């Protein structure tokens, strides 16, 4: 990475939708993609007289997230109203948590983007709140007008706020990737940015070193509107450079100007200032009188901790230690989720070769899953059966090209290894027969044998070609091996 004349300081505010069946305070479904205003009821429309009742599962998911993020879980937390007016906020306030969030402190260790170990990003707080609906701008009515869909209103959201510990746009992306992975593993959220189940705002400024060894901080800018992890990285890269140039031009430091909000424009690839009204920041928080506080006991915490299961960082470590995978391979496997990891481990254990299992899992299995849009649970070949195939490759009974054919057939026809081999008409050459064939070839090709003896192992290639002509089913790699072996035996 090119050396910049400044340090970038980034803190993230991440909102994730929880994977509950129903909304935070009512029984409406949280399913994505329903026609507008078909998943609402008097409670989430905020009709006069209605009352919220807290979804137990949402609180549990919030606590699980807090535990996985190494947070301190509040033994007593309460709900507050955040008051502001917006058409997609039907009650005129959002039920959130202000001074007693459910989780505080904590951290997430993130693989450093340049693969230099791990970076610890501290978490300030995690709290539960309700989502708002959606406003859609519509100009076709002849005048500017907005349409409001409340399907999303009242969906449980977790707000996760980090310390400004992130030092580069790539690191911000790495944090989000790791967070998403963790929340996927916990089944807390699917973190799908396209569907809006993960949204992120970033606070960013620069520390620019001065000659006296100190530094000046540039004004903090909140960047919004980033719709993918890549967009986050690009927006922050752009914004850092913009701030540096702005500093050179204006000399503005932190505190000189009010905090600015800028939106990322994906098409133009730049951030633009967003209009925000001064008074809107007076949210008049106060305790939500319609909801009662939540208390958590040690026993309840322990029970939830038991439900966490093995988390991505631990699995990564285990894959590296048990199967001797490198960072990259373990990452790829862990990123596929818990079911895939289980599949891989069974495959590796049964075939007894971690590296080989990793290659097949990543190349053949993953490619198939992607091509057919399957999850590992839909994959027709069991780990045990795939291990059987890999064993044949290891023993030389099948070459890789044939094994791939067999694999393809197994996938298409839900066949066992044996069935596939049979249907494909692959005749396996008997070892004795193969040795016999090789001996004959060596005998009739003394020139080749001489070349090999003089150190040109490559010469054996021509024998492989002849072997294939005599028996198309032979495994070329095995022919090579046997021939070399026989020549060596001859010399000793």
């Amino acid at each position, binding site marked *: 990475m090119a050396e910049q004349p400044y340090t970038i300081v980034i803190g993230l505010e991440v909102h994730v939708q929880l994977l509950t069946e129903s909304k935070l305070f009512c029984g409406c479904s949280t399913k994505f993609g329903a026609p507008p205003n078909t998943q609402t009821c008097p409670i989430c429309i905020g009709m*006069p007289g*209605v009352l919220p*009742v807290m979804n137990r599962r949402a609180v549990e998911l919030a606590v699980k997230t807090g535990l996985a993020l190494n947070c301190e879980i509040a033994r007593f937390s309460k709900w507050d109203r955040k008051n502001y007016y917006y058409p997609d906020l039907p009650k005129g306030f959002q039920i959130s948590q202000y001074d007693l969030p459910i989780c505080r402190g904590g951290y997430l260790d993130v693989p450093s983007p340049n693969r230099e170990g791990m970076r610890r990003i501290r978490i300030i707080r995690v709290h539960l709140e309700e989502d708002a609906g959606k406003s859609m701008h519509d100009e076709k009515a002849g005048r500017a007008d907005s349409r409001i869909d409340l399907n999303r209103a009242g969906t449980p959201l977790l707000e996760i706020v980090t310390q400004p510990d992130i030092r580069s746009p790539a690191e911000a992306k790495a944090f989000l990737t790791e967070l998403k992975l963790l929340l996927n593993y916990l089944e807390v959220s699917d973190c799908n940015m396209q569907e809006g189940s993960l949204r992120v705002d970033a606070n960013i400024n620069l520390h620019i070193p001065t000659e006296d060894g100190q530094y000046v901080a540039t004004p903090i800018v909140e960047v919004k509107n980033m719709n993918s992890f890549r967009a986050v990285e690009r927006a922050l890269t752009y914004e850092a450079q913009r701030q540096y140039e702005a500093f050179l031009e204006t000399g503005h430091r932190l505190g000189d100007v009010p905090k600015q909000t800028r939106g990322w424009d994906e098409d133009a690839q730049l951030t633009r200032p967003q209009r925000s009204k001064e008074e809107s920041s007076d949210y008049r928080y*106060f305790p939500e009188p319609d909801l009662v506080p939540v208390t958590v006991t040690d026993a309840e915490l322990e029970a939830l901790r038991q439900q966490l299961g093995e988390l991505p960082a631990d699995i990564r470590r285990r894959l590296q230690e048990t199967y001797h995978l490198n960072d990259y391979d373990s990452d790829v496997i862990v990123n596929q989720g818990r079911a895939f990891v289980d599949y891989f481990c069974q495959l590796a254990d049964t075939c007894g070769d971690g590296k080989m299992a990793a290659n097949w899992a990543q190349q053949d299995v993953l490619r198939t899953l992607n091509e057919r849009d399957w999850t590992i649970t839909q994959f027709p070949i069991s780990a045990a059966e795939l291990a059987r195939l890999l064993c044949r490759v290891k023993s030389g009974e099948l070459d890789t090209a044939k094994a791939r054919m067999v694999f393809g057939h197994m996938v298409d026809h839900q066949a066992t290894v044996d069935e596939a081999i049979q249907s494909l008409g692959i005749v396996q050459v008997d070892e004795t027969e193969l040795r016999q064939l090789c001996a004959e070839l060596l005998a009739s090709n003394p020139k080749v044998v001489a070349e090999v003896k003089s150190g040109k192992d490559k010469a054996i290639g021509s024998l492989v070609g002849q072997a294939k002509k005599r028996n198309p089913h032979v495994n070329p790699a095995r022919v090579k091996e046997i021939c070399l072996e026989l020549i060596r035996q001859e010399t000793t």
Partner: protein
Amino acid sequence: MSLSELTASQLLQQLREGRIKAVEVVAHSLRQIDQYDPTVGAFLRVNRDHAFAQAEEIDRRRSRGEKLGKLAGLPVAVKDNICTQGEPTTCASRMLKRFVPPYDATVIARLKAADAIIVGKTNLDEFAMGGSTETSALGRTCNPWDVTRIPGGSSGGAAACVAARMVPLSVGSDTGGSIRQPAALCGVTGLKPTYGRVSRFGLVAFASSLDQIGPLAQTAEDCALLLEVLAGHDPKDATSIPQPVPPFSETVRQPLEGLRVGWVREHLGEGVSPSVLAAIQEAIKVFQSLGAKVEEVELPHARYAVATYYIIACSEASSNLARYDGVHYGYRTDEKAMLAELAEERRVLQQQGKSEALEDLDTALVRMYRKTRAEGFGAEVKRRIMLGTYALSAGYYDAYYLKALKVRRLIRQDYDKAFQKVHVIVGPVTPTPAFALGEKINDPLAMYLFDLFTVGTNLAGLPAISIPCGFSEDGMPIGLHLQAPPLEEETLLRAAHMFQQVTDWHRRRPPLLDRQAVAT
């Protein structure tokens, strides 16, 4: 004996014994409404056809020997801030004039399940904010005892319709005295249950931590009957108390032995009119004559209750009423006129070159909100929204809202201490009998101070009852206030019933009834 002489309990008895039919009871109720409501103005809407149909159905079911609900065939009036599915629920506000809830409040569902006949919705102060029913944007209610005076509020319609014998039972809501105060001023019995005893689901919120639905009727016995149906845990209300409901209607007739009654010096002193004072002192003597021990208790923070109450109630109200913004339901300002007005303001500012003011000019959306709310709410509601918004705003939160919450705890602790000594605390409900319509409408603070004896109960979440205990020299009813510890509604009802067994204040009828009855 005319049907309007009968209490709900007596009517129920006769209905059960088949001596009268539900249709007769409903017909009588509607006749009373026809005759007196044009003068009194208790109802915003009467559900004539539906009430009849329901009564016929109940009679049919009874004749077939089917099991009927606890209130089968009894007409009930419901305050118009309690949601009724498919029927307008207006809160006496322009804002909700055309609002039709798609759901029933829990208490409505319970009333229906008990086969009660909901005859109509009663008038109230707009969004229950007021103590005289004068802030209603949809109608004027007057006191049946003297039509030039207020019926009290905010459940003014709920109390007036019982006083004028239009219905035997009425459902109100009490945030700072809104059941007890009109009950006192109209000479009926009204009970505010323990906070959490009756579900608030479907009660249009004024101040969520204080609101409570309760019964109004002629007697404590009738209140017990209605409360038994209204009360009970509701999973739709997280603040609802998960406790079984005692059979109030059965236990109400059991006299209390060894009752200890407390009184508070400040409640019987300065500012209380002589007639009220005399009536309360007389009532205390009645309790003594019934064997109760009477002693003085102290509520040292009672004098801060009004200030505490109005800060908390208005703060919560400012948030609860934020939903009325003209987007999802309710009133919205004329958009064309609003946009034209805004364009004109912009033009003028541009012309004057006032760029800063131009920058601050409302967006169309913000102006839509502001104009909608300015037109949809009345003066008192706006005042309270302003007060609450201010008390919660940055820089004032600690001084007002937080301070009030702390004093609220002190007020609660005072009660806890007092109730270690006595079972109930008695005193006046109001400092004076009903005042004249219009008398305090332009003096909000005077209106607020009229609540000084009732708001403490709500701050502490206690149950309390108001029962008739006398009349002023000019013939206006006076109410006796009994407050009890949380969940002690039974004590209140039994004490009140004992009192009503030996007094007849609750049986007096407004002269209006006899005058007009003679005239017709």
